[in-house]
């Protein structure tokens, strides 16, 4: 069972690069004239959180939420919600050695071409 240690001092460069790129939904929605207040991946993110809460051991709800509070305030302060929620979840899982940062970066390299294929 993970403890409630502060993971905001763990640097995750893959996530820092995403945060710095700044492709946030509020700006994209405005740019493309879309009225949906949240990005299309938000319900999937919420479902991930629910599924982790149900599993209850890898990243218990309170630890997940405390991490999110700290990370949103200290590491991803410039990133709006819900992008900050997603970054915080990924950061927690990496900092707590559940997901490997390199594996995540590699998987992102595989996912993007899939989404861009026509």
């Amino acid at each position: 069972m993970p403890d409630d240690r502060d993971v905001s001092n763990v640097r995750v460069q893959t996530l820092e690069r995403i945060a710095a790129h700044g492709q946030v939904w509020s700006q994209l929605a405005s740019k493309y004239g879309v009225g949906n207040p949240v990005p299309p991946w938000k319900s999937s993110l919420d479902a991930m959180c629910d599924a982790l809460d149900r599993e209850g051991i890898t990243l218990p709800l309170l630890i997940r939420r405390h991490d999110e509070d700290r990370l949103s305030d200290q590491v991803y302060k410039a990133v709006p919600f819900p992008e900050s929620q997603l970054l915080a979840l990924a950061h927690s899982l990496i900092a707590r050695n559940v997901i490997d940062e390199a594996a995540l970066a590699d998987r992102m390299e595989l996912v993007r071409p899939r989404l861009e294929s026509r």
Partner: protein
Amino acid sequence: MADENDRFETLPDGGQQHSTPMVDEITDFEVLEIALRELAIEKGLFTAEEHRRYTEFVEQLGPAPGARLVAKAWRDPDFKQLARQDAIAACREIGVDWLQPTGFGTPSDFTSLQVLEDTPTLHHVIVCTLCSCYPRPILGNSPEWYRTPNYRRRMVRWPRQVLAEFGLYLPEEVEIRVEDSNSKHRFLVLPLQPPGTEDWTEQQLAEIVTRDCMIGVALPKPGVTSNGDRPVHPAIHPAENY
């Protein structure tokens, strides 16, 4: 009249076809969400089937059931009595089963629910000081501001001041009671029915019962059918006082 966001595509015959605006960019966040989910499934943290069912659950959530409950309670004294005494049973009457909100259970929502009835001298407001516990089966997902340490910490200390920041100014003679939610206890505010709505139908009444009214940061008002914009204030050192 066309909305300013409406778009039109030119067809081969020179005519035009309406097209819905869409974001034509793959974002890093979209890619990250998929990559993280795939790795979590491969690690066995949850299954793809569990994730799919939770996604379906999340996508059908919203504040409409809560609004129906409040409107029905205003119109039907027996139902109001039931809502106050056994809110879970009252929810079943409006089609929400808290014991099986997804059809396969959500531990974070399996809980007791209490309906908090306002009176002319007592106003309720809900918060979750620990994280963001919220009556999702009947109110949907919590708004961003409800999740912030700023709201959570300050509402229990200075409720009158925080309510005023939401534009809700209550007279001094009205007591404010803040109820702190947790993983086992969720709350819903049953506000006073506004004057002048006595002969309204349940549907008309439900339209003015906004999410914010059921959290307790707003009062129902004829003509107001949506939540106001809320500024999100950053907190100073939010994680230090748990």
